[in-house]
């Protein structure tokens, strides 16, 4: 059955450099497909080059495959054609789908066992480890680039608006007031915008306020899960965004990360996006900026807990004729990127959080957080309070589709075509249909 090559597979295999089990000059060559462009992509290539220079058994060839979604599609097509890369970088919301992919993946614990290369789950930060582990604590994929959503402010615009740039708002009420001040003083064309609307305003919002995003512990405890994002707290928050839109305080910048350029260009004074936005903002922003924790709603939960990680992990893929030497090279790479020095350097150059506790400690002793104040905020936000079943992550199948459904309903609500509650009811109804479909395919 695996021989059946689909049109998709055939076309992608023709485009992709086939991951041949080649052994040139005695080195084991392995391929790594990644999905980060721009400044972050350059850092991925750097890590691979450093690995190649640090040892002489294996050589990694990093290949940029477009966005995370495109990377996922290409690797599925390649696997079906028997040409999967050795490693693929997969975003965190793809975890549910990857776990259902059975024989296509060699999970990290299995890789460690077969190759004898020690990969100890306990070195990773709990919030990171939990997301990528099986219920019994064995690692399914390899933690790599983890971030969390943060609030970003244009300090110059805050100054112009008569606000204290050193004290960014910590509550949503405070954000609304700051946005009003920015609009009143005309301190920036757009008071507030947001990237990743679903991730920030539903997934993170739910986790931090300890509200379920979906039943069954956000999908960790079973495939028969249902969305819960039409609960009153979510509807109230969406209604606030709608009201801010009407008042000219909030500008919809598009789906996924489409809104990011609005902040970098200096147009938007407040935005929400990944902590990993730092590499690009530091490079391109021509104004003073700061990163702050996500605002919360004290009336929903006076003691907000941790936010959830985003970003991606690395999955080991299988292919016919793949040798143990190749798997060992993959395992060695995993061990390499888990070294405190390597992880700390990655963290400090990108804005991703360290995935190991040791790298966090190392960055502290190196004085990184004193030199660049605020860079430890994502870590503090990720480790705030007591981890709950609502804040450990998401294990929902076809989560990309769920995110798009929510974004579509938000777009319709922002145009005044429906109320916040109607939008979320509709998103839940449509989303549950997708979850049922996934449940049926995953059970087979």
């Amino acid at each position, binding site marked *: 059955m695996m021989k059946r090559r689909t049109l998709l597979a055939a076309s992608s295999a023709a485009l992709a450099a086939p991951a041949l089990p080649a052994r040139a000059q005695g080195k084991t060559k392995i391929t790594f497909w990644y999905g980060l462009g721009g400044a972050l992509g350059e850092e991925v290539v750097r890590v691979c080059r450093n690995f190649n220079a640090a040892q002489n058994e294996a050589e990694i060839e990093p290949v940029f495959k477009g966005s995370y979604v495109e990377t996922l599609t290409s690797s599925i097509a390649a696997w079906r054609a028997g040409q999967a890369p050795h490693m693929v970088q997969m975003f965190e919301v793809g975890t549910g789908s990857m776990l259902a992919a059975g024989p*296509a993946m060699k999970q990290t614990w299995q890789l460690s066992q077969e190759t004898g290369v020690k990969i100890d789950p306990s070195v990773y930060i709990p919030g990171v480890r939990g997301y990528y582990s099986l219920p019994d604590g064995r690692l399914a994929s390899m933690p790599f680039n983890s971030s969390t959503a943060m609030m970003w402010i244009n300090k110059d615009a805050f100054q112009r608006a008569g606000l204290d740039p050193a004290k960014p708002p910590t509550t949503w009420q405070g954000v609304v007031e700051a946005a009003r001040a920015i609009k009143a003083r005309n301190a920036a064309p757009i008071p507030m915008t947001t990237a990743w609307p679903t991730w920030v305003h539903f997934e993170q919002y739910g986790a931090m306020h300890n509200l379920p995003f979906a039943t069954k512990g956000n999908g960790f405890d079973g495939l028969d899960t249902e969305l819960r994002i039409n609960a009153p707290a979510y509807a109230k928050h969406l209604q606030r965004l709608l009201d801010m839109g009407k008042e000219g305080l909030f500008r919809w910048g598009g789906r996924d990360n489409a809104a990011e350029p609005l902040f970098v260009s200096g147009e938007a004074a407040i935005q929400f996006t990944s902590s990993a936005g730092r590499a690009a903002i530091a490079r391109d922003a021509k104004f003073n900026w700061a990163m702050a924790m996500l605002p919360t709603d004290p009336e929903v939960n006076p003691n907000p807990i941790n936010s959830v990680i985003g970003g991606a992990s690395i999955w080991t893929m299988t292919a016919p004729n793949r040798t143990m030497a190749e798997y060992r090279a993959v395992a060695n790479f995993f061990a390499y990127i888990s070294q405190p020095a390597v992880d700390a350097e990655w963290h400090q150059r990108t804005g991703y959080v360290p995935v190991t506790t040791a790298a966090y400690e190392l960055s502290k002793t190196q004085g990184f957080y004193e030199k660049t104040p605020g860079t430890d905020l994502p870590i503090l936000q990720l480790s705030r309070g007591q981890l709950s079943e609502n804040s450990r992550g998401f294990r929902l199948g076809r989560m990309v589709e769920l995110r798009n459904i929510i974004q579509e309903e938000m777009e319709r609500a922002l*145009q005044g*075509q429906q109320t916040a509650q109607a939008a979320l009811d509709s998103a839940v109804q449509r989303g549950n249909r997708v979850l049922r479909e996934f449940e049926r*395919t995953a059970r*087979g």
Partner: protein
Amino acid sequence: MERRTIFSGWALPAALVLPQLLLTFFFFLWPAGQALFYSLQRQDAFGIRTEFVGLENFSELFADPLYVETIWRTIIFCALVAFISMALALLLAVFADREIRGRGVYRTLLIWPYAIAPAVAAVLWLLLVHPQIGLISGMLNAMGIAWDYKLNSAQAFTVVVLVSAWKQVSYNFIFFLAGLQSIPKSVMEAARMDGAKGWRQFRTIVFPLLAPTTFFLIVVNMVYAAFDTFGTIEALTRGGPGKATETLVVKVYRDGIVNLDLGSSSAQSVVLMLGVIALTAVQFRYLGRRRDS
């Protein structure tokens, strides 16, 4: 009066048609067969678990009110694109057919947009209509129109219709121009002697004589609007805001490539295939009838 070559054996004729048959097999029958096969299955993204589900993918599709909405949206979209691009092309062709200075230059310039890839055309227009940096949006905002096609369904739909129509004007222009040039001069002169001029001449003589061209173009433009506009729409709006610019082919891509639901995506392809077969059948019948008469 037909001239036919009579082959003595079957080997040579078979060899002559073989390349065409192979092309048809590999580029049509095989993928179409795959689509049909997958439309009857439920399968996970990796193809590990496959289950035969009969026509369930189809019944789920048509039970979904959003899919039915998308069908209607696609029909309206195709009709608008075909009408606007053909009307503009006909107008331009009528003017370019006149005896004017620099006729060749006009004609060449009008054919240019046809050489641009859909995605490139979309990016060009994106720079014009972008809510923040667009040239046209700047003017519209100055005129007091709050322009933000990323969050206004009507504006988004207008943009994708106009860009898709613009892209097809050149193609229609070439056919209309050729059609106009094939109208016998004697007919036009006779009309003029009978006193038909301007609009009346166009309505009663030129337009009816262009009917075969027009009909051919309607079919071609409908197929273009239904299929070849994918690049334009995906680059401009990705089907949003909401589902305002999601046509059938955009949905096939979204469900198949992004959402990795091969069964439903294949079922949608089969529905689209039936649509094209119907359009082609109409065209063949009509053309066949004309030849008979």
